[in-house]
Structure formats: C-alpha cells, structure tokens
C-alpha cells in the first residue's frame, strides 16, 4: 500500500470512528464540531507551513467566512448549510486572491506581521460597524440541510456529521493536492526558493495559489464555526484567534493531513479540562501544557526542524 492509499484508509477510518463516537456520546458532538471546523483553518495553515510560511492572519478569512455565512442567513434568509459553507469559502478565496498579490512578496516574520496587520484592520472595521453589531456580533439563523433543520437539539448530530464529512473532504482534497506537481513545490519552496526559480517554476505564483487555498479553507472553517456556535463576532479576526491556529498547527506538525484535526480536537479538550478543573488558573495550566508539548513532543514539530537550512 503506498502513501496515498494509506492516507485514504486513515481518513476513512477516522471518519467512521468520529461518526460512531458522535452517535455514542452526544455531549462530544459540539466540541468536536467546533474542533473540526477550526481544524479546517489549521489544515490551510499546514499547507502554508509546508511552504515555509507562517500566517498570523488566518483569522481574517476565518472571520470573513463566518460573517458571509451569517449575513447571508441573517439578511437574505438563506439557510441551506452547503450554500452557506460554499459562500463562506468563496468570499474568503476572492479576498485571498486580491491580498495574495501583496502577501506573496513577503517571507518569514514579515509575512506573519503583515497578515496580522490585515486581520486587525478587518477587526477594526467590524468593531466600527454598528449595523453588524460591533463587538457583540449577531446570531446566525439556524441552518438547514436539504430542507430539514440541522441545528438545535434534534439536528445536532446532522450538523456534526456534516462537519465530519466536510473535514474528511478537505483533508482528502489537500492530500491529493500534495501529490500534484504544484503541491510538491511546497516543500521545494520551503527548502530553497532560488533553486525553484532556476528550475523554471514561479515561486510567487505558487505561493499565491497556496495562499488562496489555505484561506478558502479558513473561510470554510469560519462558516462552519458560525453555523455551529450560532453566533459570530469580530473576535474571530483578532490576532489571538490566528495565534491559536498557529499553535495548533505547530502542535500537530505537518506530517499528515489528519494531523491538524487531531491537534485541534486535542487542544479543545485540553482547554476545556483546564477551564473546568482550574477556573482561576487555567492560563497557567494551558501555558504549561503548551510548553510540555513543545518540549516533549518534538515529533509534532519534526518538520519544522528541517527548515534550519534556510537563510536566517
């Protein structure tokens, strides 16, 4: 069995396991749906990480996805979940195409900082917009799927199943992408951009394309989060949200397309445990957990070691 089939088997097994877990443990569904939605954003970030770029502004697209889906529901009455998810990632993709022209010229810390600045500008714009509720945001109308409601008490499992399938599809698509010539360029760009140029490929174009893919995944994640939580607010564009994605991406490592989702689920669980068992010192608990992971789970970070050969 080659690597491609192995990944497919892993993903299918994970999908089945998740669905079973959700059916057996209803309280698990909400947390897992949120984790899977955020995992989509982290998946996009993983693509960028494999290209050697760290974006501290994925929150921009996460928020755009959520607000597009939410606005479509709230102001235009569209409730079909698939439509909302598609619109969310499309809007994010369009904005990414535009901003990508600018961002594709930057690398390392400047790429990170510029993406952070752009996401904070969106945050500022949303805070100023009283029509969209400013920092209070607004509630999302309950989504439906093919006519039947998938929110609320009865629809919770359907929404969860939708999230699982969407995550599965995203992971599988990205895995297939990595086996295309453009996808394989990612590792090449990370190792040595100059040689890639000498080979005749355009680094800028490649990065632009990957950026758009990563951001549409973030938009998808945002729309899904909005539908699940039922509420969206500008906090989604704040730099701490983006920072959370980066942390989960590092924790998970770039080894496999399933890693971001596992990392995301783990992170949500650890944070919940910290909240419940030490409400007065959960930051201490979370920070310590993060340090322990960074120090003792280097396998989660293994691919980052390989970038040391880069100019720094």
């Amino acid at each position: 069995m080659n690597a491609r089939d192995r990944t497919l088997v892993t993903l299918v097994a994970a999908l089945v396991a998740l669905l079973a877990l959700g059916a057996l443990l209803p309280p698990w569904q909400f947390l897992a749906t949120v984790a899977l939605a955020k995992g989509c954003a982290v998946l996009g970030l993983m693509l960028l990480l494999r290209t050697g770029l760290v974006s501290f502004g994925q929150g921009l697209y996460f928020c755009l996805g959520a607000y597009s889906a939410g606005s479509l529901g709230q102001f235009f009455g569209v409730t079909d979940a698939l439509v909302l998810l598609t619109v969310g990632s499309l809007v994010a993709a369009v904005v990414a195409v535009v901003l990508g022209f600018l961002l594709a010229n930057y690398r390392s810390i400047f790429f990170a900082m510029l993406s952070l600045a752009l996401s904070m500008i969106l945050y500022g714009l949303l805070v100023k917009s009283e029509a969209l509720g400013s920092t209070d945001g607004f509630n999302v109308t309950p989504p439906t799927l093919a006519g039947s409601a998938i929110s609320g008490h009865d629809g919770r499992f359907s929404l969860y199943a939708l999230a699982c399938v969407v995550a599965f599809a995203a992971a599988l698509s990205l895995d297939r992408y990595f086996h295309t010539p453009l996808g394989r360029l990612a590792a090449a760009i990370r190792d040595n951009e100059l040689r890639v140029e000498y080979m005749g490929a355009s680094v800028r174009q490649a990065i632009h394309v990957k950026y758009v893919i990563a951001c549409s995944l973030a938009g998808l994640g945002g729309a899904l989060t909005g539908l699940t939580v039922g509420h969206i607010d500008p906090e989604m564009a704040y730099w701490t949200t983006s920072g959370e994605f980066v942390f989960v991406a590092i924790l998970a490592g770039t080894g496999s397309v399933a890693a971001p989702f596992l990392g995301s689920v783990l992170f949500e669980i650890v944070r919940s445990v910290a909240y419940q068992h030490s409400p007065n010192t959960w930051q201490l608990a979370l920070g310590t957990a993060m340090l322990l992971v960074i120090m003792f789970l280097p396998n989660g970070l293994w691919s980052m070691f390989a970038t040391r050969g880069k100019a720094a």
Partner: protein
Amino acid sequence: MKSSLWQCTWLAAIAAALAWIPSTAAAEDAKPFRVGIVTFLSGAAAGPFGVPARNGAEVVVEAINAGTVVAPYASKGIGGAPLEIVFVDEAGGTTKQVTEYRNLVQQKNVDAVIGYISSGDCLAIAPVADELKKLTVFFDCGTPRIFEDASYKYLFRTGATATMDNVAAALYLHQHKKNIRKIAGINQNYAWGQDSWNDFVATMKVLDPNVQIATSQMPKLLAGQYGAEISAILSADADVVHSSFWGGDLDALILQGAPRGLFKKSTVVLTAGETAVQKLGGQIPDGTIIGARGPFDMFAPDTELNRWFRKVYTDRYNVPPSYPSYKMAQAIFGLKAAYEKAQAGAKASPSQEQIIAAFEHLTFEGPGGKVTMGLGKGHQAVQGTAYGTVKHVGDKFTLSDVATYPADRVTPPDGVKSEDWIKGLKAAK
C-alpha cells in the same frame, strides 16, 4: 510521519478520558440544587466586575445554605435543598463560552446557570439556553437586544438593560446643569461604549435639539493611555463629557485627566463610575456625576436586606460590595424566590417548568430594592436607577443631589425597541 499521528491519537484518548472521568464521578445524587455561575475570573473585567460578582455569589449562597439571610429569604437552602455552586471563568471569547455552557449543562448536569457580564456572551448563549432547555439567568449584561430582538422560554435576566444608564444620565444633567451647549464623549470603542454614547446623544438631542457634539473619542478597549484624547477634549471646550469607561480604563482616565483639569473644565458624567469609587474615590474631583447602573451600593435603599448584605460582604472581604455583587445577589435571590413560589409550601421540588412559570412576571426583593420581571414577556427585569454628584466632605467621599429615576421613566416598555423609544421621548421630562 505515522508516529506523530499515533502519539496524537493516544494523547487525545487519554485527555478525553481525563475530561470525562471527573464529570461522571461528580454526577451523584440530585438532591442539592446545582447552579453554574459564570463570571470573569481572569482578564481585565475580573477586578471590577467578575470577582465582586463571584464574591457576592459565595457570600449569599453560604448564607442561604446556613439559613442566616434576613427576611424574606430566611428559609434554609432553596426550598429546603442546599445550593451547590460550580464556577466557570467567562474569559476566552464567545465560542469558548458556548462550549463551556454546554459542558455545564450536559456534563456537570447543573440545574440552572446564572452569569454573563459580556453582552456578546449573552447574545450567543441565549438561543442555546432554549436549545438545551436549561433555566438560565443573566445577571449583568447590558445589551437591550436580548429580549428586544427575540423571546425565550428558559432565559431570564434579573438585571436591567444599559439603556436606562444613559437616558437617566441625560435627564440628570438637564435637571442639574443649565445651558449645555456642547457635549463631548470618551467611550471605549466596542459595543458597550458605542451603544452608551449613542443612547446618551439621542436622549440629549431629544431634550435639546440644539446641543452640539464637540468631539467623540473612541479609544480602543483597554488602551490605557489617554493623553491625546484628553488633550482633544480639553481643547474642544465642552460643557459636559460623557464616559461609560470602566475598570482600569476608568482609573486611567481619572488619574490622567484630573491633574490636567479635565474634571474641572467640564462636568464629567461617568455612567459606570461606581466601580472606581472604592479605590479612587479620593481622586475623583467634586462635581463629577456618578452612576452605579442601578440602585446599588451608595444608591441602594436603606432596607434590612441591604444592610445585612453590606455587613456580611464587608465582614468577609474587607471591602463593601459594588454593583456586580448586588446584581449577582439579586439574581440568586430572584431564583430562590421563583423556586419557592413554585414549590408553594409543598415538600417536593418543583419542576423546571414550574419554576419558569413562577419566575415570569415575578416581583421580588433584592439588596437594591424591588425588582419586577416586567419586560420580555415576564423574562426581563425592570428597575429604576439613580445618579449623584461627587462632593468631598472633609476627607470623606459623599454623593450630593442624588436623584432616583423610576423604571418607566428610563426604560422602554415591552415590545418597543430602545432606539425608537428614545426618539419618542417627550422633551418636557
């Protein structure tokens, strides 16, 4: 490649097990009435709001369980059952709060949830309360949107909305200051600050259409440095400066503005000023107008319940209770009143439906006076409010010219949105 995946899987399994074991251990007999209390225990809102609210909850619940509260809450426990509290930190954003709310209801199996200071959290949690069919009581958040935009069955709010803070401020100003030509504002640039300023300006314009806005400063929440804003306001020559600042920002405004004469040049009205009084009372110059978001703290009526509450709180924490403590006590007493009304003397504990029916349109007493659940189809509390002017008598901080405003004068009636109601306010009030 695979090893990191396996390691992650193992860790996830272990963590999931850890997360579930304690909660199953905690689900013992259902006799105590378990309440989840959600308030800020970390971050900037913890000091001025979250921790006073938590302290208020602790002190009141202890006294209720011991049966040492004065009338009308002298009975032990809540309808005989002891109250058990689970605290949850409100920090972390709305998604996190919705997750934790669901954990409270589905894993910790609470009988009711009391909490939420942030309006964003309230808006997000409201529909979830009805989805999970769990009695939830908001105690502090100020946005009128909760019951103006929708109605809920399982949700109650025992604290009045923030509209009355700013309407009453404008009324007070017109009663106590002549010839207000220009107004300025410095409010935190987020929903609370924006709504406060908008309500204030709208009311001022109704009371006097000729009033001009000299400048509206909207610094970022938690900015902390207001040198430029203070300069801008000083050069704007305003008669009145409105601010809904709270916490560290309010402290900074006072510390940075007072030495530069901000409070002498204009009349400054601080709608949430009461939170700064305890620590900075001595620095707030005379003539400043202070509000406490309701009849709390120094505006509370001199009832036995209020005296008892202040004594018990001060004995325990060495500082008097501030308005979040009052509002939390109000919420707990409201719950107790509704529960016992539903029980109506019987031995058995009332069902959630019965408690809800009893809570609707209930009038009960809190340390700040009577509270009536008169809006939102009986789910939203109305209360009056009060404002006073700072006057130092010797070294002592006192408030002079205290004016109280009954609820119907400063709160829109059921079914009318705040913005529309303000526009319709008659000028001669």
